[in-house]
């Protein structure tokens, strides 16, 4: 296949990716609005700015493939197919949420979509995903597993132990580091001397690639290659998506003490959704009207999600002892 044809093929996916990224973005902005109006309980970490990573990876997975996600995982859940209304009901603590409302933001589980959970313990998803891939290999299920994690997690032991094991056993797994340059307020460059996550793959003998995480087609290409290789028995890949969160670490953090306004603005200029729109328009794959239509549909989807979640019942207090054994 020549490069030009490959590019055409990728471009054909872009409108779909645009829509998916918009879903993630507008979901999070809705959550932010609800949270700021004290409608939602708990702590939330939003994915605003990082959508290309979740979409570019998950769009290449099959429904039966598994992903293990992080504390910043609403976007991963939706990208893997969890309906926005079910995710929102979970954040709202309602019985119709994917974990019956008892989990909230960092404990969303939806195995029927291959979504093996967000996770409040940083680092934990990496070894869990490795185990998921071990299961896929033992069962010869043909599934591929993705473990998502942030730059903060790669300095914990769990990363090193897991990636080594995934590599030595040729597991069908993609380790996806969403390097957004900060762990809470800790700049990655203050947490490690080797700020190339992808280069760490060399230590464990697996391919490591770095991609522009704000370019959904670049993520798509890297993910597709890694997923195809994993599915055909070629073993794991470590992908580093260079990305950025526009918002604070969690809702409530203004996100301004440890990074400059200018830095945030620079990244916003490189917004993955705006970039996709620009390419679509330039390539004549969509016009302004089409993009507006897509946006209106997604806005409506989020309004419906709010109506659904808001009108869903709260759990009975006595159900607190359900699901212990």
């Amino acid at each position, binding site marked *: 296949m020549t490069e030009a044809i490959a590019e055409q093929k990728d471009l054909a996916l872009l409108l779909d990716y645009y829509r998916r990224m918009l879903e993630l973005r507008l979901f999070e902005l809705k959550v932010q609005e609800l949270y700021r109006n004290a409608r939602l*309980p*708990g*702590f939330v970490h939003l994915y605003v700015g990082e959508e290309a990573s979740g979409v570019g990876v998950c769009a290449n997975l099959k429904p039966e493939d598994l992903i293990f996600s992080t504390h910043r995982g609403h976007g991963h859940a939706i990208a893997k197919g969890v309906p926005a209304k079910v995710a929102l009901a979970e954040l709202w*603590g*309602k019985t119709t949420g994917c974990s019956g*409302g*008892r*989990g*909230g*933001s*960092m*404990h969303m589980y939806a195995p029927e979509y291959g979504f093996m959970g967000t996770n*409040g*313990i*940083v*680092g934990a998803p990496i070894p869990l995903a490795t185990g998921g891939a071990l299961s896929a290999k033992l069962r010869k299920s043909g599934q591929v597993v993705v473990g998502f994690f942030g730059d*903060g*997690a790669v*300095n*914990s*032991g*769990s990363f090193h132990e897991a990636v080594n094991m995934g590599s030595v056993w040729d597991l069908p797994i993609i380790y996806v580091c969403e390097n957004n340059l900060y*762990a*809470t*307020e*800790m700049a990655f460059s*203050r*947490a*490690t001397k080797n700020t190339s996550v992808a280069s760490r793959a060399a230590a464990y003998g697996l391919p490591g690639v770095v991609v522009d995480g704000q370019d959904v087609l670049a993520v798509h290409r890297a993910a597709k290659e890694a997923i195809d290789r994993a599915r055909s028995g070629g073993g794991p890949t470590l992908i580093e998506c260079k990305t950025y969160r526009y918002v604070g670490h969690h809702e409530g953090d203004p996100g301004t*003490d*440890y990074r400059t306004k200018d830095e945030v603005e620079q990244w916003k200029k490189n917004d993955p959704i705006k970039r996709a729109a620009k390419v679509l328009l330039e390539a004549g794959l969509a016009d302004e009207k089409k993009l507006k239509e897509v946006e209106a549909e997604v806005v409506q989807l989020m309004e419906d999600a709010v109506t659904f979640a808001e009108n869903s019942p*709260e*759990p*009975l*207090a*006595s*159900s*607190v*002892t359900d699901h*212990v054994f």
Partner: protein
Amino acid sequence: MAVMTYIDAITSALREEMARDERVFMIGEDIGAMGGVFKATKGLQEEFGSARVIDSPLAEGIIISSSIGAAMAGMRPVPEIQFADFIAPAMDSIVEQAAKLRYRSAGTQTCPLTVRVCYGGGVGGGLYHSQTNTSWFIHTPGLIVVAPSSPYDAKGLLKAAIRNDDPVLFFEHKKLYRSVKEEVPAEDYTIPLMKAAVKRKGSDVTAISHGYMLQLTLQAAEKMHKEQGAEVEVIDLRTLAPLDKDTFLESVARTSRAVVVHEANRTLGIGAEISAIIAEEAFDCLDAPIARVTGPDIPAVPASPPLENFYMPSVERIVAALERTLEY
């Protein structure tokens, strides 16, 4: 004397001990420039420099294990665990190294380590920002487990912990950080570890608690006094391990009734140990069964507000247990 919040009392204890002893240093996630997620270490990096107030990579295992090594080699580390829920990666070194160091070296090695741990529910934190896992450590001989209930105690106990030569797990309840204030002396003071305190005198029933639950127990006692004229003696354990049993045994000998209140889940919580000690050593004094008000035996505090409310022991539940015990 100044009126201080619990968190300000902790900051001031840290500041004073850092100034007093240059072997004291701190390490933790976001504790430096940011001053910690709850701001307990605010201003300390500016004052003492980034060599003594160290922002660590996100890695609880090495935060604690390197602190233990530093303690063995002449320092007095005060690492912070941002949420008690994240301490598990450090369990190996706490349990296998720190707790057993003095014993297995026949006293040639000590471990002057104070691990500050932010714990507890009631703030809508969800499953991994709400746990009370004090019992993990209470069950490990060689560790001192402290859980202050007020600003005055927090400061005096933290200073004593830092000066102590054995490993201390210092549990700070996040709900107390800004919700209680009291007078705290400006001059240096410490409060002895391993010693309970009588926080309210009474003759009808003994209520034993600690941490945030102690505040609720005091409110329950006040309610019982106002509404029913019952006099509840309230004992604050302050240190959960090793346990000061004399203070509560002496009280139960006078009141003949005991209620234990804690937020940790019921099974093998501190209430189980206290109940056993009272049954063994004060059986003849008892006029009623010992009652426990605790968190339920469920894996974690759920996120949904009605479920979290159900988890947390409340003033109403404490009052009900006191009434049952008095009416028996």
